[in-house]
């Protein structure tokens, strides 16, 4: 079974698969040893679960998938803009075609609902942005219970001069695992921005592949993972500059507490002929416990001329001097830690234009920061 999941989630030959999964192999093996039945796409959702995605701002522009299947019951598509076409090709595949600007973001929700025994779902979602600018919020939520493994394959095509902003908020209980592969192409003068916020889950692997194949194509990635317990998140960014004057700008922050495990792999390749490329990658990580682990691998391969490239990656601990500074002003140690961790994460989101997106991220962060959690436990205990 182990080989089967690696076959399914891996790419390339055996050596490449092994290499790409080296930090998450044990977690994948544990998943592979389980028997999963097909998850129920018609499962009913608890009200508290619905409340997590039923935001007033996106009412009327929301597509909801329950265990991978499109749900007419929970979707709310009354005010989707005229230029947006949603097609279902069978239960587990849908195609979104956008032409023209959409001022309000589209909200796509993937809900993982446990059954009586371990179950899994798979979905294919394609997004083709022909013209205009659009924001899409992809949200992953789930209920705790028996194990669920979700697999989402996305293909995204950003057309010439078009602009996509994809914000992915993934906040999953420890019984849910998620594999996402997003294959993206950005055409001439197109702009694509990914914002990822990853919280929780048993194993969460994202393969974000981006091909900047049109002249002047731009890609920006902002991301944060915040993990605790035995949570495990593994993000692979693979960005290929294959046309002239393309740019990418990657800024990620990671936090791991207790026995959590975080992995960040950021690979940027500038292909022969992709002259004038500008590539930046920064990844900083914070370990809050001696038992937590974060592995970061920036990889830069350049085969073109006149390329600007900068990359840096660090793994460190909370700055004791900063902690003392806050405490010396009267801020209690637990709140000071929380402030510092929050500030560290928010650095990744500083440049995000949309105030709404920043607001959601702030709320999620405030709820999910390790120390706010601890305080709640202390209060509850």
């Amino acid at each position: 079974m182990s080989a089967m999941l690696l076959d399914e989630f891996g790419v390339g030959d055996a050596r490449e698969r092994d290499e790409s999964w080296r930090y998450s192999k044990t977690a994948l093996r544990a998943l592979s040893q389980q028997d999963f039945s097909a998850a129920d796409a018609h499962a009913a959702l608890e009200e508290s679960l619905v409340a997590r995605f039923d935001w007033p701002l996106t009412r009327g522009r929301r597509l909801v998938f329950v265990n991978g299947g499109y749900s007419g019951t929970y979707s709310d598509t009354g005010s989707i803009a005229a230029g947006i076409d949603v097609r279902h090709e069978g239960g587990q595949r849908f195609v979104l075609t956008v032409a023209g600007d959409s001022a309000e973001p589209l909200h796509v929700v993937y809900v993982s609902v446990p059954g009586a025994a371990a179950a899994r779902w798979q979905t294919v979602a394609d997004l083709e942005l022909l013209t205009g600018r659009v924001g899409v919020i992809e949200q992953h939520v789930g209920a705790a219970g028996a194990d669920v493994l979700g697999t989402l394959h996305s293909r995204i095509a950003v057309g010439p001069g078009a602009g996509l902003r994809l914000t992915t908020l993934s906040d999953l209980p420890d019984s849910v695992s998620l594999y996402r592969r997003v294959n993206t192409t950005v055409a001439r003068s197109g702009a694509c921005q990914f914002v990822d916020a990853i919280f929780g889950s048993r194993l969460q692997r994202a393969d974000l592949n981006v091909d900047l194949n049109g002249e002047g194509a731009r890609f920006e990635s902002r991301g944060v993972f915040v993990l605790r317990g035995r949570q495990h998140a593994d993000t692979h960014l693979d960005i290929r500059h294959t046309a002239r004057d393309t740019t990418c700008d990657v800024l990620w922050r990671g936090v791991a507490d207790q026995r959590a495990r975080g992995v960040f792999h950021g690979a940027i390749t500038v292909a022969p002929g992709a002259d004038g490329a500008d590539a930046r990658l920064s990844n900083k990580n914070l370990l809050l416990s001696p038992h937590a682990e974060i592995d970061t691998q920036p990889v830069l391969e350049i085969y073109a001329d006149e390329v600007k490239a900068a990359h840096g990656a660090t793994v460190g601990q909370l700055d004791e001097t900063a902690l003392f500074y806050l405490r010396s002003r009267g801020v209690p140690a637990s709140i000071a830690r929380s402030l510092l961790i929050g500030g560290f994460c928010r650095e990744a989101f500083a440049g995000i234009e949309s105030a709404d997106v920043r607001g959601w991220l702030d709320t999620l962060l405030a709820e999910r920061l390790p120390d706010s959690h601890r305080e709640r436990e202390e209060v509850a205990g």
Partner: protein
Amino acid sequence: MLKIDNLHVRVAGKEILKGLTLDVGAGEVHAVMGPNGAGKSTLGNVLAGREGYEITQGSVSYNGRNLLELEPEQRAAEGVFLAFQYPVEIPGVNNTYFLKAAMNAQRKHRGETELDSMQFLKLVREKLRVLHISDDLMNRAVNAGFSGGEKKRNEIFQMALLEPRLAVLDETDSGLDIDAMKMVADGVNAMRSPQRAFVVITHYQRLLDYIVPDFVHVLVDGRIVESGDKSLALKLEEHGYAWIAERRLAGAA
């Protein structure tokens, strides 16, 4: 208010303070001067409760309590404030949020009601106006990207806002031009009161032209070797720290 008695402190296995004794009464301004490496910053950090300082002997009492057993945040709430020699840059943490958290934690500790956002901002604007500081300071991250002068101004602003009873200024004058130094001095002088004490740690006499101290102490090699009034600072300026060393040698002989 503050009684330091025969304080011995080790940092990373090395003895830095070697029997420091200092009495600071309410309403007084004490200047502590000394050459590099004498233990000036160690004194400030020990008073504020920084980790990594091992007290091997002696005591520090503050308003009759053992200061050394309090956590840094408890000391702050009890009215101790340290203006840092090197204020820390904290990207991503907003100044307003930080200071409101600090102020309300202190008030809570003292059993006072916490300020709501309106009350807090009103107070902030008042203090900023008095110190002639632009209010965009409050929208920025704590010290992030601030110039040296801006950081020191922010320290004085925080002091003005938190209204400590014992303020320790650790080389607040270092790296400041004359205008910024005057601003710092104005901030301190405006807060002088019979209930409040200051310990002004400095390397140079210049700051003491603007903050006129009641007492001047010379700290050399972990001990106060000479105490006097403000004229002592002028003598030091004239003769240098070598003069103190020579006097001590003469005294010993």
